[in-house]
């Protein structure tokens, strides 16, 4: 959890905004540090978290979370964290060597027309179960790392959007919880040859849907050792102030955190 980002976003673990749909995205940079921030943030806030790890193994997330002061193993034993090890299961599912219920959950890996229905049902079940038993003072949270991997595995943009839409309806609206997703853009240029199945198309659709967007980009001037990129934060306007807000920061990632500063005010520059 980065304290600086909390003050920028005007939240703290004691005061969690409900019904947020947070979209993290990156292009020519790596936004996964933000994902680790939100994972540790919601765990510290005492929320019930369901984490779908499509990219890395559990031990990776655990090692990073430990540096941020959260123990994932304990959280999982307590039942606060439900971790879906999608990467670990994938090889066995693809080679048709897993038990039927695991194969059922990850059926997008094998089906010729992949859908995410089983995954959604699992996520929904695990989070609403918490709602029934727990004190329900803190909202449930779904975190997905990352959606664009699904596109590489042959899931269509449409199926991914169906999944996020269902999640938003079920978790944000019904359970008063939050959803955090990461989308990584892998296309070379941003505008030309607009492809139907590109991740920028997915990103555009999700930007329309989200309430808070943090998009990470590499520096336009190229590689720099002291500034790792810039992050553009966008809030959707709600209620009386319809106007949405937009702020741009530059950032640098350290071993145990990250610092955010206004463009051009890096300690290396000044």
């Amino acid at each position: 959890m980065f304290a600086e980002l909390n003050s920028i976003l005007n939240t703290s673990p004691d005061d969690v905004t409900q019904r947020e749909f947070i979209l993290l995205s990156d292009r020519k940079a790596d936004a996964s540090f933000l994902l680790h921030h939100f994972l540790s943030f919601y765990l510290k806030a005492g929320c019930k978290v369901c984490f779908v790890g499509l990219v890395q193994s559990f031990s990776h997330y655990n090692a990073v979370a430990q540096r941020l002061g959260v123990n994932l193993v304990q959280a999982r034993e307590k039942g606060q964290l439900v971790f879906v090890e999608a990467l670990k299961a994938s090889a066995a599912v693809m080679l048709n060597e897993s038990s039927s219920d695991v194969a059922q959950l990850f059926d997008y890996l094998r089906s010729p027309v992949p859908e995410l229905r089983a995954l959604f049902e699992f996520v929904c079940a695990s989070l609403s179960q918490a709602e029934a038993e727990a004190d329900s003072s803190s909202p449930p949270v779904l975190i997905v790392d990352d959606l664009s991997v699904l596109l590489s595995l042959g899931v269509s943009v449409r199926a991914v959007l169906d999944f996020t839409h269902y999640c938003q309806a079920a978790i944000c609206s019904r359970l008063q919880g939050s959803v955090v997703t990461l989308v990584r853009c892998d296309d070379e240029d941003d505008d030309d040859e607009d492809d139907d199945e590109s991740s920028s198309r997915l990103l555009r659709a999700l930007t329309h849907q989200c309430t808070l967007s943090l998009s990470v980009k590499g520096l336009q001037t190229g590689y720099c050792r002291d500034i790792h990129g810039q992050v553009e934060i966008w809030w959707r306007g709600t209620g009386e102030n319809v106007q949405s807000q937009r702020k741009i920061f530059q950032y640098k990632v350290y071993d145990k955190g990250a610092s955010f500063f206004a463009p051009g005010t890096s300690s290396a520059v000044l």
Partner: protein
Amino acid sequence: MAAPMESATKGIRLSGSATSFQKKSRSKLIQIPGTKPSVHTGQLIISTGVPSLDCALGGGLAVGSLLLIEEDESDSYSRALLQYFLAEGVMSGHELFVASAQDHPDDIVKDLPSPLQDEDPEFKTVSSSNLDQQDAMKIAWRYQNLPKVQTVLSSSSRFGHYYDLSKHMEQDLLQNAKIHTFYLHEEQTAPTHLSGVLGPYSVLLQSIQLLIKQNGFDGSNSQVKTCNVLRLALHSLGSALWGDNVCVSPAHNHAMLTFLYALRALLRSSLSVAMVTVPTHLIRNKLIRGRMIRLCDTAIALQSFSDAERNNNPLYKDYHGLLHVIQVPRLNCLGCEVPDTKDLAFRLKRKQFTIERMYLPPDLSDSVSRVSKVQRTPVCTSDGNKHLDF
């Protein structure tokens, strides 16, 4: 990745809780020849066989990770890197798995470079050039005390071996090594129920999985108590000979991506490292290249100066190509090891392959254009032709 990482962090925590200035008790750590814990993350890493490439990638390759090499146009330098990777495996006593559809894996293994007996030729040349400098021409006194710019990337502690490309490795070294080969055209045809998702790669994935399971690299087989690293080298994945249509088909999602994802999953749960070379310049749909890089941990691209335009450029005359480090992994930590510069170039000397920082050589030719021209600026003084001389 789980096993080596946990043991390594445990070792570090042990040493941290003890009082300082005590000898590290390393008894709890798994000792595998040819590996060392990374300075930055405590991750178990191995050498790629090219020490300067290790430096460019932040120390070496983490066990459990996947390295993607984008081939140069003729696949000559990327092939050399693959052979270095295998040769280092032979020298460290690791198990090897070589898969190819083009050349027979035995041929690739036969041509492995021979290790140099007197190690570290770069160090030797540096020290000898220092001796030469004593009676060399004196340059301006201002620059005398500046340190010599070291262009060759190297770390202080030696890790990995140096190899002589002009000689082949001796037969007895190769015979002692455990080498598993996979030649596509000798394998039986794919089982039909899998070919839908994994396409031509299902047999390859199956044999890798079988090897990892049987030889206990994932720690599941309790009878085989091997503590060794498996190096997987997959040559020219995606080329037409693999039976892959990625080069011609404009489709978005592809069996190769699914295979890389499954391979990543296998590597993460075992003591193995994979190096995959892919001719990305042949792939038709450009989206696939970006997705491939995202699915791998480390990605580098080789760009050779085979075309005449670059070859004639005086800036590049010392090098044979450019090396782009596209992606460095972030494993078990938030940040990654950030290099000073990304301007890297490689050169293939007679015996060895090195990666260096690119720099502009001093221009010593006669046609140097820095002649200080007398500026005939309009001056308000009476005599315009007179130079101001101090």
